[in-house]
């Protein structure tokens, strides 16, 4: 109102008197300011009123006024974009021609450095006008793009409690719920803000006094853009950007923007990445702030922003995230995180954790299981009360589940059977610790596992545990759990014999194929086992060693007593019975059934054990009857005088091993095989004992110890049955096995130099660091054609990294061995000090290779020989075991498997392969098992050769083996 009357007067003065100052200023600015801006600036100056409004123009809006209006409309949008984005992203300044001074946009009296990067994107609004070419709504989205994340990085959102939530997971979940996404958002970004600058429709024609209105619009717009500037720095995204700017944040945390042409119905109900919640929260996900409406002749100007109320994002190491979850033990957390990463999500197991993991590592059941075990830990743990136990259970369960699939696929019954014993033993131990439940689980596993493949199952469980420990970051917790579990296991171990029953089922399977062989081997095995079991069991940690051996050993012991034939028949019967039980009852029911079985039929368990032993025996038999016999003899001797025997057996074994050694490239390894066979039991016992001390002794080593434990466990099992016999008897086979080992070692040598290290280190390092990311990577690698190579590469680096770790591990192992000796009276007594040392080493090596009885034998034997010779030998043994494991494992699973695989490979795989190789010819003739074995062997070989199948098998085996190791430990 004032304006009109005044305008004439003031304008005149301004234009005349003051205009000079203002215009002079403007002129000064002009060079810097964009051409468009310059005009506007000139017209507005500071005083909007400066615009000349001649009376004559009132009739119709002057062209000049319309041009100014169009300029305002255009700059209204572009300036808003400039101000908004300047407070979010780095916009490169633009320069005037011939000058190095940044060009400044002074529109609306907010001076902001201009930029050219937005020119194209804002073309639509640059060229718009108030009538013919009205501007569409301008949408500016700021978002985080997760494409820049590496495989082991995860974008997490922190809720008000500091809890981390996997963003991609949440997005994936929301996408599933809402398949239709707005075009503006891609699948992997998180929209932080959506700014909407809009010129509303106006029903009216441009007023005639447009020229007099524009100054007011401009004035009000100044306020609007000032507040836009202000509010852009109140929003969470600003704080987020500011914080990251200081911290030189991950590229994925760099806010990106996109400029979108809004449509009239932009406010659709479609969920988008702006409004979808990233985590459960009671507060609103987004809020909207409106900057009010500025009426103009061209329509109402409005600006508003919808923004996430929480922009606390961070890039975390995937593993760290998992570990944190584990640490937190929040089931919920687990769920989200896991799913997010692995889109493939398989939900094999009820366990939440397991699912995501599996997704990630589709190929590798182990990691998932491991996680699952962890998850089960948390979940189950509470219910069960004993976390360790629950963990054990989980492991056992996982093992069973995993084994079933892997075993069925790649591994054959033979290997499975062998592996299974360990797993069973572990299961048994776990069961024992857990009580009835555990037993059932074990029993189930065996049954399930056998068809699938006992070995895988066994292996898998152990692997999970180690992985979980390592991967979980909660390694400490894991270690603790493991430790706990171990003691429990030990205790259980005693009880475990009953649990061994499940094994019989596996045996039954085996039995069908190799009844004859079984009988023989079983006898021998049984004897050995018996010796071991008796000695071990009777000895200190009878339960533990026993548990490891238990499945086999315990059963074997009983079996040994019984006549082979009788045993076999009994076993078969048992198997049938148990099969039913196994089939019908699963984990829960299985537990009960297992309990029942255990209770009802100790004899059955024995039979089963016998069967297992038989199966192992059969394997060994197939591999080499002679070997078995020899082993049996040695075992028998041992059994006669457990402690003494052990020593004797070792010596004997060593002697045979020596002859063998020549055959194999690795002489030490070869002798060790022989020795290992005989020794195996000792080693097992020792190993078990050793393992426990290690675990308890050094938390730091926990990871390693876990691995070692794993290894030990497997080693125990392995050595007993297969390794010795095959190697001893069939040199050619041995050679093949040895060759395989050798190959492995050779190929791996660099890496394998520290086989233990690798296995251990891999397990530990990979677990810890890699666990999540590594697993993913591994999976990826595995998925990719040359997984083995990658794995090897990974392993190598790992080994390098591990190397430092290795010594400790080796030390720990040695210590463990020593400790084991001391703790295990039987062992210690049985083996001389040297033997003890060796034994531990062997046990380690065995543990590695132990899973694979053959490998263990070979490795064990080698280790024994070496061990006897020198500690380095131990390392070599370890290497061997590792090498075997690595070879088998390396191909595929390295990282994930790495832990499990390597150990597993070393443990079960190699030995198995060796056995398989040896057995193969026989097996082929014999039955399907042979084929299965062959396949396993092939797989192993393949692993060596980098065959995918082999890799898979290796991984599975590894897992199973690991599980076995755990079992043993337990």
């Amino acid at each position: 109102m004032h304006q009109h009357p005044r305008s004439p007067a003031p304008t005149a003065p301004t234009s005349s008197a003051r205009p000079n100052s203002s215009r002079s200023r403007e002129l000064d600015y002009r060079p810097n300011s964009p051409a468009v801006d310059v005009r506007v600036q000139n017209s507005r100056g500071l005083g909007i009123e400066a615009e000349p409004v001649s009376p004559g123009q009132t009739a119709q809006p002057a062209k000049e006024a319309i041009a100014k209006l169009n300029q305002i409309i255009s700059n209204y949008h572009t300036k808003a974009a400039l101000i908004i984005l300047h407070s979010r992203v780095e916009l490169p300044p633009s320069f005037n021609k011939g000058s190095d001074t940044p060009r400044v946009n002074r529109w609306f009296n907010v001076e902001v450095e201009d930029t050219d990067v937005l020119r194209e994107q804002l073309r639509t609004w640059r060229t718009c006008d108030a009538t013919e070419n009205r501007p569409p709504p301008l949408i500016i989205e700021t978002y985080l793009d997760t494409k820049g994340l590496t495989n082991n990085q995860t974008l997490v959102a922190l809720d008000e409690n500091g809890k981390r939530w996997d963003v991609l997971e949440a997005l994936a979940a929301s996408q599933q719920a809402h398949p239709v996404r707005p075009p503006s958002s891609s699948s992997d970004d998180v929209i932080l803000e959506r700014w909407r600058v809009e010129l509303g429709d106006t029903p009216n024609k441009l007023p005639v006094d447009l020229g007099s209105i524009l100054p007011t619009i401009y004035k009000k717009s100044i306020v609007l853009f000032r507040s836009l500037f202000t509010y852009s720095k109140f929003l969470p995204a600003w704080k987020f950007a500011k914080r990251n700017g200081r911290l030189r944040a991950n590229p994925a945390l760099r806010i990106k923007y996109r400029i979108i042409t809004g449509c009239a119905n932009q406010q659709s109900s479609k969920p988008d990445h702006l409004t979808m919640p990233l985590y459960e929260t009671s507060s609103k996900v987004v809020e909207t702030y409106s900057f009010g409406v500025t009426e103009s002749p061209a329509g109402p100007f409005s600006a508003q922003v919808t923004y996430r109320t929480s922009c606390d994002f961070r890039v975390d190491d995937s593993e760290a995230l998992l570990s944190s979850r584990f640490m937190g033990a929040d089931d919920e957390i687990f769920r989200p995180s896991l799913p997010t990463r692995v889109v493939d999500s398989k939900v094999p197991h009820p366990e939440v954790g397991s699912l995501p993991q599996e997704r990630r590592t589709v190929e590798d059941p182990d990691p998932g299981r491991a996680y699952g075990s962890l998850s089960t830990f948390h979940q189950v743990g509470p219910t069960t009360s004993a976390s360790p136990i629950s963990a054990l259970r989980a492991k056992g369960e996982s093992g069973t589940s995993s084994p079933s699939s892997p075993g069925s696929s790649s591994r054959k019954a033979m290997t499975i059977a062998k592996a299974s014993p360990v797993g069973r033993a572990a299961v048994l131990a776990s069961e024992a610790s857990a009580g009835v439940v555990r037993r059932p689980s074990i029993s189930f596993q065996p049954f399930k596992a056998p068809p699938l493949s006992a070995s895988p199952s066994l292996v898998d469980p152990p692997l999970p545990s180690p992985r979980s420990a390592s991967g979980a970051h909660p390694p400490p917790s894991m270690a603790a759990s493991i430790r706990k579990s171990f003691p429990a296991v030990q205790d259980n171990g005693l009880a475990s014999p009953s649990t061994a029953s499940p094994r019989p089922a596996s045996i039954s399977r085996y039995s069908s194929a190799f009844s004859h062989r079984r009988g023989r081997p079983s006898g021998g095995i049984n004897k050995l086992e018996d010796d071991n079991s008796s000695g071990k069991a009777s000895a200190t940690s009878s339960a533990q060693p026993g548990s490891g051996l238990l499945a086999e050993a315990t059963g074997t012991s009983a079996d040994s007593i019984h006549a082979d034939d009788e045993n076999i028949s009994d076993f078969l019967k048992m198997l049938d019975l148990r099969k039913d039980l196994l089939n019908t009852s699963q984990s829960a029911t299985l537990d009960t059934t297992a309990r029942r079985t255990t209770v009802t039929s100790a004899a059955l368990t024995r039979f089963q054990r016998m069967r297992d032993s038989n199966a192992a025996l059969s394997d060994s038999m197939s591999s080499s009857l002679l070997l078995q016999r020899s082993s049996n003899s040695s075992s028998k001797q041992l059994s006669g005088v457990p402690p003494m025997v052990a020593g004797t057996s070792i010596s004997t074994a060593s002697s045979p091993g020596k002859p063998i050694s020549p055959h194999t490239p690795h002489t030490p390894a070869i002798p060790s095989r022989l020795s290992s066979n005989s020794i195996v039991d000792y080693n097992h016992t020792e190993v078990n004992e050793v393992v426990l001390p290690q675990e308890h002794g050094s938390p730091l080593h926990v990871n390693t110890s876990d691995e070692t434990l794993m290894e030990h466990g497997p080693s125990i099992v392995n050595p007993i049955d297969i390794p010795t016999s095959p190697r001893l008897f069939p040199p050619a086979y041995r050679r093949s096995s040895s060759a395989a080992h050798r190959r492995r070692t050779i190929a791996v040598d660099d890496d394998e130099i520290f086989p233990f290290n690798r296995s251990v280190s891999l397990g530990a390092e990979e677990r810890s660091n890699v666990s999540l990311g590594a697993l993913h990577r591994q999976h990826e690698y595995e998925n990719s054609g040359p997984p083995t190579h990658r794995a090897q590469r990974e392993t190598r680096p790992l080994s390098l990294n591990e190397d430092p770790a290795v010594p400790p591990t080796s030390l720990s192992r040695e210590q463990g061995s020593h400790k084991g000796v001391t703790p295990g009276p039987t062992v210690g007594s049985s083996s001389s000090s040297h033997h003890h040392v060796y034994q531990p080493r062997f046990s380690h090596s065995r543990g590695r290779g132990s899973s694979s009885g053959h490998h263990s034998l070979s490795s064990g034997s080698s280790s024994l020989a070496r061990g006897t010779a020198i500690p380095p030998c131990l390392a070599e043994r370890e290497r061997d075991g590792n090498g075997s494991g690595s070879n088998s494992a390396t191909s595929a699973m390295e990282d994930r498997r790495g832990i499990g695989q390597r150990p597993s490979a070393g443990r079960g795989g190699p030995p198995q392969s060796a056995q398989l190789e040896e057995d193969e010819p026989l097996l082929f003739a014999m039955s399907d098992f042979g084929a299965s074995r062959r396949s396993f062997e092939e797989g192993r070989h393949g692993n060596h050769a980098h065959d995918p199948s082999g890799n898979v098998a290796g991984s599975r085996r590894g897992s199973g083996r690991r599980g076995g190791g755990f079992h043993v430990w337990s």
Partner: protein
Amino acid sequence: MEPRKTPPEYFLEIFADTTTVRDILKGVLNLIFFHRYFPSIRPTTFDVLDFTLPAINDEDLETLIESRISALVRQHSSSAASAQEGGGGVRGRIAVEFYEKRRRRSGIWFGGLAGKGEEEVCWEVWNLDVTIATPRTESERAKVRKAMENMLQKAALKILAVVNREKDHIPPITTSDSNPFPYRIVLNPRSDGWQNRFGLY
């Protein structure tokens, strides 16, 4: 049109402890001026507590703000010393007043008095009620810190809401002076101060 119309007044509650009162007041005052200082500015920012507030690079304005804040702090320290037992805190008020220059209708009559025949009419007043707390314990400090943040945010949002909502009372800019609207920052204004001083007569 109706010059005598009472200008809108807005009240802001400011809560601060002795260590942050300066920054908070500076932030709030700058925030107000940021939306009422119409000359073209190159906005800067400065951080207060957990907030980033805009600022105007204008020496005169900064000097004025600093002087007023210092006066308030001195007043507080003196009053706090005298009324140590006061408890809760010390209150003070800072008023920010914006004026427009009007040509006197009566023209010549007071021309000599008002310079060029103009008078300054207040068209907006911001009242900052400042409470300065002196927390003595850690728990108190934490509480005060939280309260300060909450109050500052509240005040900032209120300012934004006001400036965006109420624009129609902003006088037309009839001058090309660097600053079309004179302003004053008054410490402890009398309740009717602006009326008496600049009022109607």
